[in-house]
Structures are given as structure tokens and as C-alpha cells.
């Protein structure tokens, strides 16, 4: 489906803009500018308001980024459990810094808030799939799944 079709299909759904943004992001891995402009038109809101929604939730990105989005929880429990070491390992392995994307467009590295899996910290997600009790040693295997 094109982003226009996606947006049109959520037009009359309550909370439809957020759902549509999820669906669009699933395709493009981020929310390109024209999708936000079109969302404003479809939901009859100013662009400034649609942009507000698109930037309010950390799960959406308005910047181009790699296809596979790796998120590391930065909330306190994960932090205490050694999230910083996991971040360092990811940065080393991918050759990018937190917040960047790899030049081949394959991976993006981002922080996120608590994802509700505090029983097995540190936690990372790749395209929404959760990995528990992550250690630096597990990183190469996790990445290999997406290469």
C-alpha cells in the first residue's frame, strides 16, 4: 500500500493517525515529510499538529534511518544492568554512534524509554522484537539475524 492508501484507510478510525504512522513507519522505517503533510490533510489538522504527534512518541522517527531499527532501553533498571556496555558494543560492531544509521542503510541505533521488560534487563529491541538479558557478547549473533 502507498502511504496515501494507508492514511486513507485509517481516516475514520479513532486514534487513526497514530495507527497510520505505525503502518507507514513499518514500510519506510521512518515518517518521511510528505507522509506527515498528507496525514495533516487526511485528518484535517495543521501540519504543525501532525508533526507534534509524529515527534511526541519516541517510537516514531521523522529522520531517515536504517531499515532495521535497534533500540536500547535507557530507563533506570536497564541502565543499572549495564545498558551502557551494550550500547558500546553495538556502536563498535556497527561502526556508528548512538542516533546514527549505517551507511549501507541497514541499521539504525536509538535509545528508548522502558519497554516493560524490566524482569530481564538490559533490553534491546530490533524492529520491535524484544531481546532480553542482552550482553555485549550476544550482539554479533543478534545482528547476524538481520544481515
Amino acid at each position, binding site marked *: 500500500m502507498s502511504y496515501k492508501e494507508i492514511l486513507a484507510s485509517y481516516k475514520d478510525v479513532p486514534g487513526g493517525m497514530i495507527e497510520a504512522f505505525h503502518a507507514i513507519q513499518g514500510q519506510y522505517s521512518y515518517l518521511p515529510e510528505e507522509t506527515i*503533510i498528507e496525514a495533516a490533510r487526511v485528518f484535517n489538522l495543521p*501540519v504543525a499538529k501532525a*508533526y507534534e504527534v509524529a515527534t511526541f512518541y519516541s517510537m516514531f522517527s521523522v529522520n531517515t534511518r536504517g531499515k532495521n531499527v535497534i533500540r536500547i532501553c535507557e530507563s533506570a533498571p536497564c541502565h543499572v544492568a549495564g545498558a551502557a556496555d551494550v550500547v558500546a558494543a553495538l556502536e563498535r560492531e556497527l561502526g556508528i554512534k548512538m542516533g546514527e544509521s549505517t551507511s549501507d542503510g541497514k541499521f539504525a541505533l536509538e535509545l528508548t524509554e522502558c519497554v516493560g521488560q524490566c524482569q530481564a534487563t538490559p533490553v534491546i529491541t530490533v524492529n520491535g522484537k524484544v531481546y532480553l538479558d542482552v550482553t555485549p557478547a550476544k550482539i554479533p549473533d543478534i545482528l547476524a539475524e538481520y544481515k
Partner: protein
Amino acid sequence: MVNVTIDGIKTSVPDGSTILQAAQEVGIRIPTLCAHPDQSVKANCRVCVCEVEGNRLLQAACSQPVFEGMVVKTKSPKVIEARQTILELILSNHPQDCLNCIRNGNCELQDLAKEYCIRENPFEMKTRGLPKDFSTPAIFRDPNKCVLCRRCVETCSIVQGVGALGLLNRGHNAMVVPSMGQNLADSPCVMCGQCIHACPVGAIGEVEYIDQLIAAIADPDTIVVTQMAPAVRVAVGEEVGMEIGEMPMDKLVAALRQIGFDYVLHTNFTADLTILEEGNELLKRLTTGGKLPMFTSCSPGWINFCETYYPDLLENLSTCKSPQQMFGSLVKTYWADKMNIEPKKIFSVSIMPCTAKKFEASRPEMNSSGYQDVDIVLTTRELGRLLRMSGINFDKIEPSSFDSWMGAYTGAAVIFGASGGVMEAALRTVYEVVMKEELKDVNFTVTRGIQGIKEAEVDLNGTVVKVAIANGLANARKLMDQVRAGESPYHFIEIMACPGGCIGGGGQPITKSNLKREQRIAGIYVEDEQCAIRKSHENPEVKIIYEEFLKEPLGHKSHELLHTHYHAKNKKLI
């Protein structure tokens, strides 16, 4: 009613009142920053916290409703200390730039820092380090000074129905940004400047042109000529410690001469002229089947709005330029000729209640005199700065009067400053032109007042002309949607971008509440009553310009100098 005790004072207030409102009832002032008298509750700054008996946590007075038997302390040591810490936290993210700031001396945050004796800030200083946005010729933004109260966002979206501003991110990364985080110029901003009034601090302001004025005054070969809009006099006194409406016109003229203007003329002259042109345009449209309803065109914020959101209705706009621009094209043609002054030596300065007029003057088509018709536009606030800078003492200054040929005006021009005024002025003239008899009572009071939408009917020889008036662009939207749907019953619609009309313009002395707008409106009608002549077509200088120069309304010369055309803005980020 609910019984409450505030700082030991017992009172009863209506159900649903907030602590802030209850305190106001008994004359206790609680400090606020995000609260605004005409807006929804924001409760995001926490400056207003108070102690409520039985509650361990301090409560935000602007949002906390009172309950039966509530006991509140608004100034206990605990409260004072908490407010100080809150202010220190806000200030630790705020540039320490008061000396250079456009709101120095008129800033809610500065006042609070002063009241709460903030001296050394224990928190680490960390400002956003973002560039200022000077992308438009009228409004600038300094995102570093924003305290995130969101008052501008509400004004722009709810009052003005524009929606140029919104939030980016959330939590400690949040910021207020124009559409898609771009420059203001790329957003649908219509440059009305209402967000400036809403902003408690110096995060939004008018682009100043005082330096250009001073340079022109300093140049002996330049002849500096000024025009001044009707809403300026009624408000500018507020900038120099007078009451609303108190500034005498003859002393203001004298002050302008002292500042260094070579000639002082009045936009009211071209306001009267506008009535002749626009009134005749209306009659022509009514009799020849032209596009109706016709919309007034003197509010450049409204023109920007129409060009942005209703490009399909541009033909409904009167082709008349605004009084400012009519003045601009005449001062470098007709007036220059009368005075025997070379037009290229004229530096034409307009003093306006409006920020959008700065943009209007810079439109490329506004050069029908062969030069830029209006060189710079100053707001009422900038005039206030000039008056203070020049140290003018209004008790002592000798009165003076306007210069000739474009300085005479009638009460009909004066009321252009208030919402409904253009309509009333037009009706005074159109009535007499059509009925060929004298209008006994010139006061069409139904068109007056601050309500968002007003309507009226006049019977002109059996033709009932229906008119409507809107002020504030969210109200304009309602009338425009009706027109777009083909359901508008009106023939003539007056729209002013700013709430209350020009007296509430984006360039007026900082106007936090609508109450002030109403007081200025009253001042406008007092001035109208005091005018000997109150109908535009009876302005003696207007008669002369038609006899000697323009010949007739809507004539060839008028079309060349006094009328214009509009363009769809085709903005992407609306």
C-alpha cells in the same frame, strides 16, 4: 458556592473555581507564568504552587479546583522556597540576556525573578544554543528564550485558526516550533503577531526597523515622511505611562516632529479614501453582478490568511489596497508633486498597530509610485521606544497639527481602528451615495464591539444589503467556509485578522487580556464622536484629491495607484 480560607481570609466562591480565581476574589495575587486570562489552563510551569492543608504536595493554583472547607496558604516559607527553586530551574535553561532583550522591562519571567529575589542560581546553566529565526520581515522567534508555556500555540491555533506553531518532542527535549520544525517563513504564519501578545517572555517579537529610521533622519538629503494608523494614538500612551486613549493627538504630532520626522501625515486620510474606493466597488459589484460577498482588504494578516487557506475566494477580496499602501503610493506621487519634492528623496515611514504591515510593505507589487511605496513600517511598540529614547515630556510639549494634503481625516477613518469600523464607515458613505439624502444618525452601533462575529442589514432604496463582520481569524474561517459552501447570505464582509480589530493588532503595546482591547475600542468611539466631520466623502482633502488628481473613484489613476491583486500562496506546510 464553596467556602474556602485563603491566607486566613474566609470567602465563598462558585463551584469549580480554581485556587487562583478564589485568591483573586479576595485580592491575593499568586504569581503565574503559563496561565493566561483568556486561555485554557496549561499548568506546565508550576510557578503558582500553594500549600493546601492536608496535602503534602504543593498544588498548582491555576489548575487546582477549590473544595468545601479548603484551607490554602499562598505565601508560606515552604511555598516561597518552592517557587524560588522552580524559577531557578527555569532560569537555568534561559539565556541571561535581559539587557539586550526586546522584552526588557515588560517580561513576566523577568518580573518573577525580580519579585522572588533570584540572585545566584545553584543549578548548572544550560541554554538550547539554537539560532534565532529572522526568516520573515515581520516576526522573529528566539527559541532559546521559550519557557514552553504554549500560550502562543493556543493563540495561533485556536484564536487565529492558523496553526503555524506546534510542539516538537516531549519532556525535557520539548520545544515550540513552526510547522515541521522549519522556519516561520515556511510555515503558514500570517504574521498577525498575536503570538507576541500571548508570549510571557521575549521568545517572539516584531522585527525592528528603528535603526533604519534613525539613519534616514540623520541623512540631510532624505525627507522623512510619516503616516500613522488610527489605532496607534489610542494605545501608544500605554508605552509612556498614560491611560488608554489619553494621548492627545496634537501632542503626539509634536512628539513625532521632535523625533525628527520632516512631515507628519495621517493614514486616516487614505482610510477615508479607501471608503470612497471600496464603497463604490461594492456598489459596482452589487449593480453589475460582480463577485459577492465582497471582503474588505485592509488587514494584511487577513490577506495572507486568505491567500494561504482560501485561494479559491481571492476574487471576493476587494481590490483596494490597504490604507497604508494607498498612502505609500500617493505620498511619492500626488503629495510629492504638491510639495514639489523629488519622490526619490522621500523616505516613507508608516507607524502601525500591525506586524503584518511590515510584510505587506515588502511585497514586490507594492511599488506603483515607481519606488518602494512604503520604506519601513514601525509598530506602536517601536514608536513607544522612540518616544522614550527621545525623552519626550508630554506635560511640557507644545501641540502641533498635521501637515497638508494628506493629513485631514474624519471620524469614519478613526473607527477603522476597531472591528466593525470599516463596515460602519462604508455604510455612512454608501447610504448617502445611494439614497442621495443625509444620514441622520451616523452611528451603526450593531457593527461595534469585540464579539467574534457580528451581522447587520441596511435597506438601501428597497435593496437589503446584508453585512457581516469578523475579528480574529478563527472567526473569519467560519464566514469563509460558509462562502466556500455557497451558503453565505451576505453581500459585504469585513474581516480583521486581530481580535478586536487593529486596536488589538500584533504591534500594539503588549496586550495580555481582551479587557484592554475593549477599553481601546471605547477610546476609538470617543475620538469619532469628537470629530466635526464623520463621513469619509466629506473629508475636504479627499474632495481635493479627486478633483485635482484621481478624478473619480475606481478611475484610471485609482486603478494604477490604489488597487492591487492577490496571489495564492501555495504553501506546502499548512
